[in-house]
């Protein structure tokens, strides 16, 4: 009898204690869902750097959790649901393929804030954010067009979504502007992360005469393949991939998510979080251009930096007419620039690119 009473009161006391703790809700819990491993050296690696920056900036007031290698699809929904159930206040879902899963889970947890990277579906508690990677692609295209000797540029594409297609178009526009003979060979690998397959695709492109390989996949495998071939240049994707500098990696597009993640976490803390659509580029610092190495001729480097400056201050837009679509129909008139809606939903190649976009 005594023992039971004791146990019961202990249980009540514990319960009260736990409730008090939960009520205080001292830490803001931020969850991250990653499509690859944090050690991919590319896309996911940069998102995780952003997560670490959040911890650094907010210190004890924040707790972060992450799950890596989450497949796009039902798995993602399960992981997000679990995070929300575990008390996350803010969840960043960092791949395009998580779009529907994010919306579905957000409906079930109206009090949890969600941030979906590179998508276009929003809700009251779902924001979207992305970087204007295509601005970086313009610079890559310029350097690639100038430096290719075979006039063949290989492009390892992941999935046929607007973000990837935008990148291909932007690179092509700027490569063909400085080198009208340039030809793009595009291979769709249908994965964000599979080093062996990415390496195979890079090798296939190199065997077919490409001496520049651009990638829109997350691992550094294509860099290794290019290094092996010896006379092929590459660009770091999503992360600097500086371990392959100065050659084959001659420059890179770096995603810097840290300032955004810190700001959004702060907004949740002070209650000012609102559903927004953020799309920042070189100017705002969300897209960085990694150091252009000495393998690039000095004059080309200068032009590339001038292009970067023009993109950053807004005096030049990467999609400026005159441009036609692949089928020859007009896309942008002389001097006209593409609006964000067109860019966000881009599902066509510009004139000059051969091949078809898979459905």
């Amino acid at each position: 009898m005594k023992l039971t009473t004791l146990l019961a009161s202990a249980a009540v006391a514990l319960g009260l204690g736990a409730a008090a703790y939960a009520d205080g809700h001292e830490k803001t819990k931020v969850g991250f869902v990653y499509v690859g491993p944090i050690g991919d050296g590319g896309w996911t690696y940069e998102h995780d750097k952003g997560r670490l920056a959040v911890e650094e900036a907010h210190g004890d007031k924040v707790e972060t959790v992450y799950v890596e290698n989450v497949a796009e699809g039902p798995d993602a929904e399960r992981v997000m649901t679990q995070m929300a159930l575990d008390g996350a206040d803010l969840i960043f879902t960092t791949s395009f393929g998580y779009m529907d899963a994010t919306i579905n889970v957000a409906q079930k947890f109206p009090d949890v804030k969600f941030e979906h990277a590179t998508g276009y579906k929003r809700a009251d508690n779902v924001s979207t954010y992305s970087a204007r990677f295509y601005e970086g692609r313009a610079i890559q295209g310029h350097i690639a067009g100038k430096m290719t000797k075979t006039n063949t540029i290989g492009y390892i594409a992941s999935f046929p979504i607007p973000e990837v297609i935008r990148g291909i178009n932007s690179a092509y526009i700027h490569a063909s502007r400085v080198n009208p003979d340039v030809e793009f060979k595009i291979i769709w690998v249908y994965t964000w992360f599979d080093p062996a397959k990415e390496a195979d695709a890079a090798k296939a492109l190199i065997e077919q005469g490409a001496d520049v390989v651009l990638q829109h996949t997350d691992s550094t495998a294509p860099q290794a393949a290019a290094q092996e071939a010896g006379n092929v240049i590459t660009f770091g994707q999503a992360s600097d991939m500086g371990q392959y500098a100065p050659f084959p990696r001659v420059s890179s597009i770096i995603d810097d998510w840290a300032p955004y993640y810190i700001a959004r976490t702060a907004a949740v803390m002070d209650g000012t979080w609102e559903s927004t659509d953020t799309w920042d580029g070189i100017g705002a610092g969300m897209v960085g251009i990694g150091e252009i190495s000495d393998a690039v001729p000095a004059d080309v480097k200068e032009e590339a930096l001038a292009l970067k400056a023009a993109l950053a201050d807004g005096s030049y837009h990467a999609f400026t007419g005159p441009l036609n679509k692949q089928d020859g129909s007009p896309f942008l008139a002389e001097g006209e620039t593409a609006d964000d809606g067109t860019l966000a939903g881009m599902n066509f190649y510009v004139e000059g690119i051969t091949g078809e976009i898979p459905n």
Partner: protein
Amino acid sequence: MDLSAINPILLIAALMSAATPILLAATGELIVEKAGVLNLGVEGMMITGAICGFAIAVETGSPTTGFVAAAVGGALLSLLFVLLTQVTLANQVASGLALTLFGLGLSSLLGQGYVGIKPPRMGDVNFGPLADIPVVGPILFSHDPVLYVGVLLVAIVWAVLRYTRVGLVLRAVGENHDAAHALGYKVVRIRTLAIMFGGALAGLGGAYISLIRVPQWTEGMTAGVGWIALALVVFASWKPWRVLLGAYLFGGITQLQLNLQGAGVAIPVEYLAMSPYLITIVVLVILSADKSAAPGSLGRPFHASG
């Protein structure tokens, strides 16, 4: 479309290299399953082999030592599976899945300091004048030694299973472990050795990816090859030469479809991307019409008292 951009000789040479990791892992798993054990941990053993081989090759500067270390690493990890399924008689499916998860975690831990490092290169076997023969030379005589080891292992496994006493005992254990036990064969010991052999080959396959095919270390870099190897064993009806055929078909069509895309062939990319899976399965299903069945005791736990 420009098919002339595809060099068939380079393509065939590339497919042999692309198929080798699957071939090695599948050959190992074939022996494991022939002994009546279903080890779903191939992916975990491969990735562990990939990092063990990579790390040792970088530290010692010798890719050969790296491959030995990869085999040892894979076999050591498989001992965990032995402990779970042969000693404590845990469920084989669950233990295998656990082994994969464990291997993925362990490898990323071991690989922390090895991201972005270039491994020592393993040279091709020197066949002297043979490599200069047109067409045949670059296809058959210009590869790294591990690729030949892979093909050789298929031949050895086939010969051992078919013609030797060891093979007969192994098959007996797999077909009916109670009968084999009654005849006085050490079922658990034989299975342990088979599992370790499978682990060693999976480790070799993983190291082939990290040391030769990519070559670099990246977390999770096997990206599902282990699962393809597992499926291949079943579709190949547990026959070594069919495993070879399946691996080369799969590797070959994967390479071909990448090359066709690069050359701009007018087949929709979606169909090209799924073709390796589809064609490999169809061919092997047609071949398996001869009603070869799975080993009788596959996946069943064995205890001497039973």
